[in-house]
């Protein structure tokens, strides 16, 4: 690292967690500042987490003071008070620690050139977590701008072990050339010590929560000093925390940490952890990254890890010392997950890492960046294009796309004229692009950033504090009086206020758990392949527990094992329906897409499909008629017309469009507490999408939406690979009943109904039901006792019901 620094070369340091990476990144800067005093900004440090920036600042200040270095180290985040911000701009510190969003904001200011002109080095932490995301796109564009403002500046990337180091080096490089970056790899350290723990007694057939294992988990907590219990979803975190708390006869201090809790609450938990006041934290990905607590003795992963890189990241949170192995226990929640855990451990032992290479940068982020750069100073489009394409995510950006994005920022860029008079940017006689007024910069600041939250509602105790946020959709499914688990307690839903759901503590009856969209990671391709390898080769079952081996042997007896490279499809009747189970192993997202496509084709073939389900391992469909030739349903042309048609209508594309439209500045960002609620924005993004798709299907925003849906979500590519692999090798088994391997899928939650025209059919069905129940009478003034629509709670009963009954009897008679 020092060598690269002396040579002024950029560097990428890849090391397992706990290698003292961050310090290594800073050391050259400290040495330079020590040798040669300078004024102005020397080094910028960018971290994905605000808390990490603050923590590093603290950890750096102490040694710097001890070394007698006369340097100023400061943070700059959304929390920095206004007076300090102003001072930082006039008199910048030597080292500034910040986040991608704050950096973008600084670069959009008119005096950015003065502030960053003296910059020598930028350190990017946790680069593996940012490259390939929209925040990463934004940061990459900022780095290109920094290189323009400070041509001598070098870049230092810090990363955990990744599958694509060269792609990451390119990401770090000034001209997207991986060879210009010195790649420093730290290997070794002790290999992590991984083991699988099963529940006493029966191993569950299905489910992902892992609650059956909580007694064993609790025993492990008692034995170790400090434990992090990682789970895969927020709902799972709530349930596991509840289960542990019920078992907690020793009153161990156990806390809960996930992304929906308030920031204050999460900080409190982190502080208690750092101070050694906790024995365990149940956490989601919210603790995957973050400050180093030093004294974590073990990590317990409840539920299958879903990916090797992710598992390593989590395991690395235990024991941040290089000379001792990190200890981690994997707790599979069902039989399939046992195999997946086994596969993950084998992959770790073999030193393999999975992960996709970073995808190309988004045009929505580019639109935001163009506006930010215009707010900084007038620019020539040619020069900005050159600067943008020097960033790796945009290296392949076409001039056409750049120009269209620029036009979009100017006046919307629509084929139909009319908005010219409202343009935000104008060009002078030399072709320089200027912003039209100060209100443009104001608008940019309101919209800055690439994180678009789902419509959320605060959860607030009546007369008490805010506990956190849940998706608005979940609240809309509750009736006052319903119970749900949140923030580690059972809450009773009381009423809705404009910006918060009001709750009280306690309540009776079975509580519900908020579901959170998109919070589950799909199984990676790499791990899926290892799972297939284990299943298809009985010799490799030896390491598996007895129950699992028996289960697999039973499958071999009753049906057959899924082959390594082909595709096994089972068809069997069950009740009045025909089930079809395809063992694709391509991850939940891919299976959901595939499910839409296959059922669409089933509909055309007259099989009357009724629903489907995608788990990480299989796709299951059910239909009124027997699929006699399943192979025909999985032909490669599935990805042609049907995909096109389905994708355009899908809620996935609508969601993608909403995010893109928000980041690109078409829609206002959701600001918590504002009068406009998130649902209205969702609604209107849909309206805009429909109108735009009809009248200008090639608009830049729709192009960006399609590109992101096709390229960003790798599930379509995975389906393509699956169909190619399966061609000619599809094995079909017509069975009398469900096979052992299919059971976990059939008891899975989260089934999808076939939609399309189904929504109208469902409405008609619901209406018919209501009419049947009310004998088709119109009751304009009586309480039908039937929760009619929009769920108002039942009104106090008056004399009406009796009269109704009387009227009905009279008619019947």
């Amino acid at each position, binding site marked *: 690292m020092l060598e690269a620094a002396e040579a002024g070369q950029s560097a990428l340091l890849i090391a397992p967690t706990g290698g003292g990476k961050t310090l290594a990144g800073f050391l050259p800067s400290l040495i330079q500042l020590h040798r040669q005093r300078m004024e102005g900004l020397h080094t910028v440090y960018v971290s994905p987490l605000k808390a990490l920036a603050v923590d590093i600042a603290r950890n750096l200040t102490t040694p710097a003071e001890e070394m007698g270095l006369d340097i100023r180290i400061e943070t700059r985040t959304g929390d920095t008070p206004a007076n300090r911000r102003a001072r930082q701009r006039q008199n910048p510190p030597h080292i500034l620690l910040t986040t991608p969003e704050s950096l973008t904001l600084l670069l959009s200011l008119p005096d950015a050139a003065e502030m960053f002109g003296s910059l020598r080095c930028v350190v990017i932490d946790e680069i593996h977590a940012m490259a390939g995301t929209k925040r990463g796109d934004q940061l990459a564009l900022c780095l290109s701008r920094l290189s323009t403002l400070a041509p001598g500046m070098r870049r230092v990337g810090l990363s955990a072990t990744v599958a694509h180091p060269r792609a990451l080096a390119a990401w770090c490089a000034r001209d997207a050339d991986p060879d210009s970056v010195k790649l420093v790899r730290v290997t070794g350290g002790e290999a992590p010590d991984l083991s699988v723990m099963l529940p006493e007694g029966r191993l569950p057939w299905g489910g992902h929560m892992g609650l059956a294992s909580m007694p064993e988990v609790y025993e492990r907590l008692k034995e170790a000093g400090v434990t992090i219990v990682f789970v895969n979803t927020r709902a799972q975190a709530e349930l596991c925390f509840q289960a542990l708390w019920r078992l907690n006869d020793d009153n161990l201090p156990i806390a809960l940490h996930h992304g929906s809790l308030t920031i204050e609450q999460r900080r409190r938990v982190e502080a208690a952890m750092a101070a050694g006041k906790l024995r365990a934290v149940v956490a989601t990905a919210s603790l995957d990254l973050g400050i180093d607590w030093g004294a974590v003795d073990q990590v317990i992963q409840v539920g299958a890890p879903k990916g090797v890189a992710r598992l390593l990241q989590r395991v690395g949170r235990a024991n941040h010392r290089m000379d001792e192995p990190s200890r981690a226990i994997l707790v599979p929640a069902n039989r399939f997950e046992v195999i997946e855990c086994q596969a993950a451990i084998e992959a770790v032992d073999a030193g393999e890492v999975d992960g996709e290479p970073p995808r190309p940068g988004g045009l929505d982020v580019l639109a935001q960046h163009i506006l930010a750069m215009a707010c900084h100073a007038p620019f020539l489009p040619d020069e900005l294009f050159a600067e943008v394409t020097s960033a790796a995510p945009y290296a392949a950006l076409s001039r056409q796309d750049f120009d269209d994005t620029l036009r979009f920022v100017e006046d*919307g860029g629509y084929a139909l004229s009319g*908005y010219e008079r409202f343009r935000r940017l104008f060009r002078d006689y030399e072709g320089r692009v200027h912003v039209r007024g100060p209100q443009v910069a104001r608008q940019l600041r309101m919209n800055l950033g690439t994180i678009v939250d789902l419509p959320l509602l605060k959860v607030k105790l009546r007369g008490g504090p805010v506990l956190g946020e849940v998706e608005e959709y979940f609240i809309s499914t509750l009736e006052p009086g319903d119970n749900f688990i949140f923030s580690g307690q059972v809450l009773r839903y009381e009423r809705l206020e*404009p910006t918060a759901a009001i709750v009280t503590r306690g309540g009776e009856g079975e509580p519900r758990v908020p579901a959170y969209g998109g919070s589950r990671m799909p199984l990676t391709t790499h791990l899926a392949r290892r799972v297939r390898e284990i299943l298809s080769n009985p010799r490799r079952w030896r390491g598996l527990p007895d129950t699992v081996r028996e289960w697999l042997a039973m499958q071999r007896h009753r049906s057959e094992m899924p082959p390594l490279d082909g595709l096994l499809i089972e068809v069997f009747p069950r009740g009045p329906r025909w089930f079809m189970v395809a063992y694709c192993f391509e991850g939940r997202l891919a299976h959901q897409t595939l499910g839409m496509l296959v059922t669409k084709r089933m509909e055309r073939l007259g099989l009357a499909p009724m629903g489907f389900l995608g788990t990480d391992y299989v796709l299951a469909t059910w239909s009124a008629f027997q699929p006699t030739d399943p192979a025909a349903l999985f032909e490669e042309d599935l990805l042609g017309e049907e995909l096109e048609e389905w994708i355009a209508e899908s809620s996935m594309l609508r969601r993608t469009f909403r995010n893109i439209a928000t980041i690109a500045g078409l829609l206002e960002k959701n600001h918590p507490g504002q009068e406009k609620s998130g649902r209205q924005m969702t609604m209107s993004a849909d*309206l*805009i999408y429909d109108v735009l798709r*009809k009248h200008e299907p090639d608009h830049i925003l729709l192009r960006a939406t399609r590109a992101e849906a096709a390229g960003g979500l790798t599930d379509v590519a995975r389906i393509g690979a699956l169909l190619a692999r399966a061609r000619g090798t599809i094995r079909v088994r017509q069975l009398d009943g469900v096979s052992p391997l299919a059971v976990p899928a059939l008891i899975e939650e989260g089934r999808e109904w076939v939609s399309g025209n189904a*929504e109208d059919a469902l409405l008609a069905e619901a209406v018919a039901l209501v009419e049947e129940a009310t004998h088709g009478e119109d009751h304009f*003034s009586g309480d*039908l006792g039937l929760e009619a629509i929009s769920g108002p709670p039942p009104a106090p009963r008056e004399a009406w019901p009796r009269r109704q009954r009387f009227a009905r009897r009279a008619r019947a008679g």
Partner: protein
Amino acid sequence: MMSAPFHLAGERLLLDPSGALFWPARHLLVVSDLHLEKGSHFASRGRFVPPYDTRETLARLAPLMRRYSPERVVFLGDSFHDGDGAARMHAADRATLMHLLGNRHVTWVLGNHDPVGPDGLPGEVSLEFRDGPLVFRHEGLPGRDSGFELSGHFHPKASLPTRCGPVTRPCFLADARRVLLPAFGAFTGGLEISAQPIAALFPRGGRAFLLGRDRLHSAPVAPMRHLAAANRMTDAPLQTI
């Protein structure tokens, strides 16, 4: 397309799945809350939403003119998103609208978004239009003073529980005294019928007609007195897109 008959003050009215209402006895078509030129209104504030909303809304109006051949068209207010909307209209859109209106009688009921009549378009302007037993106004009057009323303003929408979860659609809401029309414009959102201002118009509940692809889906609505009395929970959605 199947319209649903509904009787108000003894008059037979047809509720159309597009969100329009037709009164056959008077050859009269009613549409509410078109919010034309909402796109350009937003563009003037730096949000460049697509400029095709007017075009799209007019394209929805055209088949209604063909099907019902109304002699009179009543726009129930908020026909334009703001007072200058008519002036900002694209020449082609203006020509389309003129063609649609043709020789028909046109009544522009004024709304909060368009407190003055549209510039350079034919028709009479009125705060409240009366014909026979019916009164047409933009925002309904709660209570018994309203007369037999057709109104808009609130962009009502409702959710119907189905076995696959709730399905939400814009809707008509009606009882023996009034009909509340859904918003007809392409860029108009909605307000749940359980929201206080709508509940105040229908304290005794009524019947909702959800707009479907080619028919209406109707269901009874339980009394909403408690909701009408509740604190105002939501502001009308009219300012947002």
